[in-house]
C-alpha cells in the first residue's frame, strides 16, 4: 500500500508541500519573531512596497508585511478547510452508515434528501448562507459580535452542504459489507446494530472516506477563498488568502503584484490536496480503474 503511494510521484511531492505549508503557517508567530516581521503593524509610509530585506515579499496597501500576512492567512485557510472537511466527513459517514445499514424507507428518505442537497446550486446557496443575519436566529450578541464568528460560520455552512459525497460512498460500501459473511456471523452471535456498524462495517469503509475527504479539502479551500474574496467569508482584520485578494482587485491598476501571492498559495494548496487524494485512491483502492 505504501509502495503504491510512493510510486505516485505527484502525490508524494504534494504531501511534502502540504506538510511544509502546514509547518510554516502553524509556526507563523515563531517565524515573525525570528525575522522581525509583524502581520498587524500598519505603516502608511511603506504602502505597496516591493520586496526588501525588511519585507521579503514587500508590503500591502496599508503597509503590512505581505509574507507575515500570507502565513497568517494560510493558518486560517488550512484550519478552516480541514475542520470543514472533517465535519462533512463525520456527517456523511453517519448518514451513509445508517441509510445503508437500515435500508428500506429510511434509506430511500435519506437518499432522496441527499439527492436534494446535491441538486442545490452550491455557490449561490453558500452566498445566501454566508449572508444570513445570525441575530435573526436568536443567537446571543456576545457570539455574533466575536472576532472568530466568521470562521465558525464558514466551517458550519460548508459542512451543511459538503457531506453528500461521503454519504453516498459510505452507503454503497455499507450495502455490500452487510451481505458479507463476517457481518452475518456477528448478527448470528447477537451483536447489536450499533456494535456491528461501529466494529464491523465502519473500519472496512474507511478507505473511501479518507480518499473522498482528502479530495474535498481542495474544493473547500476554493469555496472558502471565493466567499472570503467576495467579502462573505473570513472577515478582516483576520487574514485569509481569499480576503487578501479582495483588496488586490481594487488595486489591480496600481499594485497588481499584490494579486499574485495569495492566489498562488491557494492554487498550490488545492492542487496538492487533489494530487494527494489521487495518490491515496491509487494506494487504498487498487481495484478502481482510472
Amino acid at each position, binding site marked *: 500500500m505504501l509502495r503504491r503511494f510512493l510510486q505516485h510521484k*505527484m502525490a508524494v511531492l504534494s504531501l511534502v508541500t502540504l506538510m511544509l505549508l502546514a509547518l510554516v503557517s502553524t509556526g507563523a508567530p515563531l517565524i515573525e519573531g525570528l525575522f522581525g516581521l509583524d502581520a498587524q503593524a500598519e505603516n502608511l509610509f511603506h504602502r505597496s512596497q516591493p520586496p526588501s530585506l525588511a519585507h521579503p515579499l514587500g508590503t500591502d496597501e496599508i503597509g503590512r508585511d505581505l509574507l507575515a500576512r500570507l502565513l497568517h492567512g494560510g493558518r486560517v485557510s488550512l484550519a478552516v478547510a480541514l475542520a470543514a472537511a472533517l465535519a462533512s466527513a463525520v456527517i456523511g459517514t453517519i448518514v451513509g452508515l445508517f441509510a445503508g445499514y437500515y435500508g428500506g424507507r429510511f434509506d430511500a428518505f435519506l*437518499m432522496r434528501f441527499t*439527492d*436534494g442537497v*446535491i*441538486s*442545490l*446550486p*452550491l*455557490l*449561490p*446557496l453558500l*452566498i*445566501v*448562507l454566508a*449572508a*444570513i*443575519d445570525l441575530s*435573526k*436566529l436568536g443567537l446571543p450578541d456576545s457570539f455574533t459580535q466575536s472576532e472568530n464568528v466568521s470562521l465558525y460560520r464558514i466551517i458550519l455552512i460548508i459542512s451543511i452542504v459538503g457531506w453528500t459525497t461521503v454519504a453516498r460512498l459510505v452507503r454503497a460500501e455499507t450495502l455490500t459489507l452487510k451481505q458479507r459473511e463476517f457481518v452475518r456471523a456477528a448478527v448470528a452471535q447477537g451483536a447489536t446494530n450499533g456494535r456491528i456498524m461501529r466494529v464491523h462495517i465502519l473500519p472496512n469503509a474507511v478507505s473511501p472516506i479518507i480518499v473522498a475527504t482528502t479530495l474535498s479539502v*481542495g474544493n473547500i479551500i*476554493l469555496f472558502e*477563498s*471565493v466567499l472570503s*474574496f*467576495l467579502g462573505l467569508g473570513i472577515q478582516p482584520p483576520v487574514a485569509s488568502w481569499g480576503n487578501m*485578494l479582495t483588496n*488586490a*482587485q481594487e488595486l*489591480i*491598476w496600481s499594485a*497588481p503584484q499584490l*494579486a*499574485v501571492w*495569495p*492566489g498562488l498559495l*491557494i*492554487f498550490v494548496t*488545492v*492542487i496538492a490536496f*487533489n*494530487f494527494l487524494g*489521487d495518490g491515496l485512491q491509487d494506494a487504498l483502492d487498487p481495484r478502481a*480503474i*482510472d
Partner: protein
Amino acid sequence: MIFRYTVERIFQSLLVLLVLSFLVYGLIGLMPGDPIDLMIQSDPNLTAGDAQRLKAIHGLDQPLFERYAAWLGNAVQGDFGYSRNHRQPAIDVIGDRIVNTSVLLGLSLILSLAIAIPVGIYAALRPYSKTDYAVNLACFAGISIPPFWLALLLIILFAIVLGWLPAGGMMTIGDGGIIDRLHHLILPVVTLTIASVGDFTRFMRASMLQTLRQDFIRTAQAKGLSMTQVVVGHALRNAMLPLVTIIALSFGRLFSGGLITETMFAWQGMGKMIYDAILGNDYNLALIGLMFATALTLIGNFLADIGYVWLDPRVSLTDRERSQ
C-alpha cells in the same frame, strides 16, 4: 415504461423544487435587514404606525408558512414580486440576464467539450505516456486554480499589461456591435472554460480507456480496422455515453463558475444578478434568481437520468434503480 419513468421523474423534480423553494424562501427571510426597515431608512417621514401598517399590507406580520404560501400562490401565476433595486417586476429583470448567462455558459461549454473530447481520446490512446501525464497535470491545474484569481491574472495580463482586451463589461459604450461584444466575451469564456475543461477531459479519458478494454474493440481490431476506424466507428459512441450524463450533471457547477466569472468581469448574467441581489437586500430578485438556478440544476439531473435510459438500450430501469 420509459414514458412512465419520464413522467414520474418530472413529478419528482417538481416536488423537490417545491421543497427547495420553501427552504430558500425561509433562508432569504433570515438575511440582514427587512424590507420595511429599508423603506423607513430611505424615507424619514414614516412613523412607527406607518411601518406597522406597511407590514400588514405586505403581509410581513404573518407567520413564515403563510407568507410562503402567498408568495407561491403569486409565483405560479407568474408574479414574482417587485425588484427593489431595479424598480421593475423581478420577472422583467431576468429576461436579458438569462440570455447573457446562456451565451456565456453555452459558449464555454461548447469550447470545453471541443477541447476535452479530442484531448481525452488522445490521452486514452497512450495511457501512462509522457503526453498522458502532461494532459493529466494540465487537467489538475485547471481544476485547482481558483477561478476568481485566474480572472484577476487574465485581466492583469490582457487588459492592463498588454491592453488587448477589455477588463470587463458587456460592450463599449457607444459601440455595441457584434465584434465589440465578442471582444468582451473572450476573457469570461476563457476563464470559465479553463475552470471546467479539466474535469471533462479526465472523464473522457477514463471513459475511453474503459471502452477500449472491451471485447468488441478487440473484435474490431482483429477484423483489421485501423485505430482511427476503431475509435471513431466503434469506441467513440460508447465512450460518449457517460460523458453525456456528466455534462447534464455539471449544470449546477457550471452555474457556480458562471457566478464567479460574471462577477469578476461585470457580465450582466444571472449569477451576478443573484450576487448583487443578495448583497443589495433585493429579496424578490434574489428569490427568483435562486429558484432559476435550482431549476436549472434539477433539469440537468433530470436530463442525465432520462438521457441515460434513452441513449443506452442496455440499461433497464430496474438496474438503474438498483444501482442507486
